[in-house]
């Protein structure tokens, strides 16, 4: 008797209706950035190049690029760094920006994301930058409005602009200039360890999906409660190393993550034990000289995932990340307002 698997495989038309997988990439507006997989390596190169060009441009000339174009920042979660970064980026290009936050009355009154999006569009918004506590909310907003949407962090899902600014930081750390066209081997031989609350981290997801595409090895490190084994299946080039010291011994770059107390959902953690096993200290850095650079997407909790000495120390690239954020987001805002459908496939 043939088994089911054989009979399924021998059936003629399985692929069309019973696909093994459904693409995760957006097929919506070409100016959108919903997940990091939306961008090809060429498009990433283009974004990095534009970021450098815009960053070095005369501010007055830059402010003419998108003068009086309208950008809405729709923030359902509080945020200082990302919101300010996007806002400064958009304003540097001359855009008018409007902030709608979770404290706004329409959101408080229970208006749906779709209706808020349609309202912003009717008010003249040409692109929306969205931060939202629910994974996938940017897809809904893009579908509902047809506008380019920039994902500024959705639930536990992705934070693609953060991954791009982290990439820019990493490339600079490695002495790879902005002129480098990135390719599948640009980061070959480089090991990046992401440590901490991977489960709840959208930054971790975007980075672990991006960096291996450039040849980097991504090592995830953390306790099982914050790092399930199946995280290694998120994509190629991802491994799990539970022992932080082992992980550091093999790493060139380490990215520390904060424990997201707001998403723990009843999970109990022994913070003393956590510090002992996963805190990045000057002693640990000294013991593992291969680790030349420490990244952290912020906000940092000094004394928990890393010590103050490390945060302020010579390997820390935390403030470089913040600076790179504005440049990357200028490029993303520009792309959002200028991308065309034909250009999307280039």
């Amino acid at each position, binding site marked *: 008797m043939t088994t*089911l*698997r054989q*009979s*399924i495989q021998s*059936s*003629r*038309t*399985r692929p069309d*209706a*019973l*696909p*093994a*997988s*459904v*693409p*995760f990439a*957006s097929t919506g507006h070409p100016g959108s950035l*919903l997940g990091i997989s939306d961008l090809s390596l060429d498009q990433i190169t283009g974004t990095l190049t534009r970021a450098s060009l815009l960053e070095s441009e005369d501010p007055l000339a830059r402010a003419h690029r998108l003068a009086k174009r309208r950008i809405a920042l729709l923030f359902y979660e509080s945020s200082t760094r990302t919101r300010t970064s996007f806002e400064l980026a958009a304003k540097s290009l001359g855009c008018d920006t409007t902030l709608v936050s979770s404290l706004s009355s329409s959101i408080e009154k229970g208006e*749906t*994301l*779709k209706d808020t999006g349609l309202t912003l569009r009717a008010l003249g918004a040409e692109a929306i930058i969205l931060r*939202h506590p*629910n*994974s*996938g*909310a940017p*897809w*809904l907003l893009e579908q*509902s409005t047809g506008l380019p949407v920039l994902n500024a962090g*959705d*639930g*536990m*899902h*992705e934070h693609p602009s953060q991954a791009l600014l982290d990439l820019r930081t990493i490339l600079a750390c490695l002495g790879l200039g902005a002129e480098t066209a990135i390719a599948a081997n640009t980061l070959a031989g480089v090991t990046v360890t992401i440590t901490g609350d991977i*489960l709840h981290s*959208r930054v971790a*997801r975007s980075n672990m999906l991006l960096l291996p595409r450039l040849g980097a090895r991504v090592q995830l490190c953390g306790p099982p409660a914050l790092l*399930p084994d*199946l*995280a290694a*299946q*998120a*994509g190629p080039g991802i491994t799990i190393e539970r022992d932080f010291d082992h992980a550091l011994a093999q790493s060139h770059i380490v990215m520390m993550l904060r424990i997201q107390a707001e998403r723990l*959902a*009843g999970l109990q953690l022994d913070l003393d034990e956590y510090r002992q096993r996963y805190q990045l200290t000057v002693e640990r850095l000294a013991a593992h000289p291969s680790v030349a650079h420490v990244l952290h997407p912020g906000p940092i909790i000094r004394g928990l995932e890393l010590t103050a000495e490390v945060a302020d120390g010579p390997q820390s690239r935390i403030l470089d990340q913040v600076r790179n954020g504005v440049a990357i987001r200028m490029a993303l805002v520009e792309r959002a307002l200028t991308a065309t459908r034909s250009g999307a496939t280039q």
Partner: protein
Amino acid sequence: MNDHAGNASPENARPANERAANTPGTPPITLIRGGRLVDPAAGIDEKRDLLLRDGRVAEVAPRIHLSPADAAHTQILDATGLVVAPGLIDIHVHLREPGQTHKETIATGTAAAAAGGFTAVAAMPNTVPTNDTPEITRWMQSPDRNPSARVFPIAAATRALRGEQINDFAALKAAGAVAVTDDGHPILRDNIMREVLAAATRHGLPVIQHAEDTRLTEGASMNAGPVAFRLGLRGMPPEAEYGLVERDIRLVAELARDSKSARPHLHVAHTSTAQAVAAVHQARRNGLHVTCEVAPHHFLLTEHHVGCYNTHAKMNPPLRSEADRDAMIQGILDGVVDAIATDHAPHAAHEKEVEFERAPNGITGLETALGLSLHWLHGEWRLPLSRVLSLLSAQPAALLGFKGRGTLSVGSFADVIVFDPDAEWTWLAAHSRSRSRNSPFDGWTMRGRIRHTLSEGRLVHSA
């Protein structure tokens, strides 16, 4: 191709839905002529004429000749090249009435049923208010609801589905309830489930369990696994389902052991995990009366179909892994699965057009179950037509004890479908008879086109 207007000729068809199945009146005599009659319960798969009279099957024969007196007022349906089969039976639907008529009503839900070939549906009790009283049970069956198919209410096992106070099963059964369940609100406490099983057994009612240990699924919106991790969604682990199935089977075994006369019937709703089907299989080998159903979406789709947060791929139990999906097909092919049931769960468009985690669970299914089953189970996996039809009629009828349904033997209810078994067509959710459109199968190719649906002798759908 998916037009609403019937194209049957005027002399042999009434407009769809003109008369409801449950309304009194004299149904016409109907002769369905020249079709391939497939009646799995009777072991028939041959060319037969079928005569329906007074809402019942009057005669099944190779060639039926009408008396001149009858000929004058007989509607004749030419079934040449078509299959004639028992009306389909769906033992798991949510008709939303009373209470949520913006999603569905008994009239629209059973119109969708008729369009999909279903002549009997078992309606879940999570209405507003909950169907936990004989009054609501009777109200749902009233001809005033204008149904196009027979509605069999399944009553709540406990008051307001709270899992605390057991309802009056004797009164509910007397009012027409065919089973009890707290569907959507699984009964977690052992002592309550034991009491429900014992009381239902005393009254000859099956207990239907939505098997989900909700202590393991809080905040979850899809199957636990790599896809959920990738999408940043909290997952429902498979053990939340099979763990509860195993617990329920243990309770059934204990009850059967403690009392020789008691033979509890546990029916596992919408099984979605390989282990749950295996547990049901093992329980049956141990001589217990445990049955299960599988929904088309669980034998066709996987967690990958969530894709970019498609809320039409959100239901409970969730779409599972490929291995689980394959286990559902295998369970169907092996005969472990007792019925195909849709878990038809209509929701208004605006309710599904929200963030994935906030969207309600469920999809519609009444109009796609036959077309998908014929396309995939029969067309691709070579399950014989009579077995596909059995899973959609004879077996569910037997499972819930529907006498005189799920078969076309003489004296049975004249619940009949006539369909073109080879016709391929495209399902367009926008053309649904349901009040809702939340189908993940929009645009999918279906096989087998319903031409006529007769409910107790009345033509309730033609296309």
